């Protein structure tokens, strides 16, 4: 039992120590509030702006979820298409790498033009940033199916769809989960960046907008609180994907056994 207790207490202890040093240093050196606020100031700012932050987190979370869902569905579909033929993979895969290297800040204005400001443009930004790891990992998974099992499916005259549903996709689940894990964090990053450029719309401002506005007012304590909320959002999405992975894989895959 001791190691499992330690798994919780050790990182918590490190956090408390870190916050204590931070608090102590900002007070001792008399650092101005707008440069680096002490944790206590961030906490009270977060408390005072709790409802704004909560609404912001909901707005941002919704866009991130939509973008992430698009990545999950379209990313796996794209991988299935690419895996269906070597020629298609050779012809198209290089362009999926483009998705990973495109500077999202540079094309975000385009997204506003095409999709209009607000949720849609922001979600598309999250999608563009997070889809590549899903495609790459799902493709690797679909490609690494046990050749003997492929032979067996052929021997028993399995149809193309049966092979996809009963063999290829189940085989690729561990890799797909890995791709989704990476995508979950990226989706939140893509959302915040998207909000910087495209987030101005009617309705509640997201966390990205809160970060921008608190920066302009030099409310660094609120800015910190908003950044923390965004990080919390990313963590929750990541935790949800992890939970999904554990549920899907716990009975058979090495990555989820006896941890």
């Amino acid at each position, binding site marked *: 039992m001791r190691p499992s207790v330690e798994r919780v207490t050790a990182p918590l202890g490190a956090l408390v120590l870190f916050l204590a040093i931070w608090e102590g240093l900002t007070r001792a050196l008399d650092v101005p509030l707008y440069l680096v606020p002490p944790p206590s100031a961030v906490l009270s700012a977060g408390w005072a702006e709790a409802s704004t932050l909560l609404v912001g987190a909901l707005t941002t979370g919704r866009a991130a979820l939509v973008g992430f869902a698009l990545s999950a569905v379209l990313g796996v579909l794209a991988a299935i298409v690419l895996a269906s033929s070597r020629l298609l993979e050779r012809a198209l895969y290089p362009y999926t790498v483009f998705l990973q290297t495109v500077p999202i800040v540079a094309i975000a204005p385009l997204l506003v033009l095409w999709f209009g400001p607000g949720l849609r443009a922001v979600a598309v930004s999250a999608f563009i940033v997070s889809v590549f790891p899903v495609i790459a990992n799902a493709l690797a998974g679909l490609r690494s199916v*046990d050749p*003997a*099992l492929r*032979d*067996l*499916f*052929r*021997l*028993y*005259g*399995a149809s193309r769809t*049966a092979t996809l549903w*009963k*063999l290829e996709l*189940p085989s690729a*689940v561990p890799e797909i989960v890995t791709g989704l894990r990476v995508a979950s964090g990226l989706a939140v990053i893509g959302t915040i960046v998207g909000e910087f450029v495209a987030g101005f719309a009617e309705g509640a401002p997201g966390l990205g907008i809160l970060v921008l506005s608190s920066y302009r007012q030099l409310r660094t304590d609120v800015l910190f609180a908003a950044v923390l909320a965004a990080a919390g959002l990313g963590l929750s999405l990541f935790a949800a994907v992890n939970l999904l992975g554990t549920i899907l894989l716990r*009975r*058979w*895959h090495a990555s989820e*056994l006896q941890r």
Partner: protein
Amino acid sequence: MQETTRAGIGVIVRGVRRVFPTGVEAVARLDLTVEAGSFVAFVGPSGCGKSTLLRLIADLDRPTEGSIAFEGGGARPSIAFVFQDPHLMPWRRVLENAALPLELAGVGERERTERALVALAEVGLADAAARFPRELSGGMRMRVSLARALVTEPDLLLLDEPFAALDELTRRRLDDQLRALWLKRGMTVLFVTHTLSEAAYLAERAIVFSKRPARIVADRTITLPRERAASIRSTAEFLAEEHALYEVLVQGEGG
């Protein structure tokens, strides 16, 4: 032993040659007739092309020249294949693994569950139906693989060094089980192995191959009783069979 459900099918290999795209010749122009319901062992040095021949018979690979035909078994003979390793689907329970061939053939869930349970019982694994492959020992996994092959009641069972990775005790136990299943079911069995004692113990006929490209260097009828038990392994007759196979195998290696 008269409850034979199917008599098995004959296999006729005519002038089959297989050259891989790399230029390697795995099987040299080969003629072979296997009678329906017989148990034949393919023996030969590792990498000699006997596994390739088995894949050709299963239609998992196409011959460069020649043809392979079946006698009996209707338009689409039922063929099953057991690989060197179990190759189970780790995300499926034992029962669902064993039922896979029926599922792919479109058999309804009730019937395939019933038949998979029968096949699992035949290899002594009825209790393990709800478990996952990773929870089983290597020998048990191989038996699931065997049950998966038997579940369609195949006319022809092809086994490619199926027990090679198992310890001696487990392997002998599985040899006994396989032989008993053959006596009961009467399907045609082609068994690839490089272990001479296993070939002599299991088969009615042993075909010895040369090193690559595979040619037949000996075709020997094993004259041992139909009912065989572990004790037979130490009899003079058995050792004589094993030695005779050894002699031709050495000749094949040299020539």
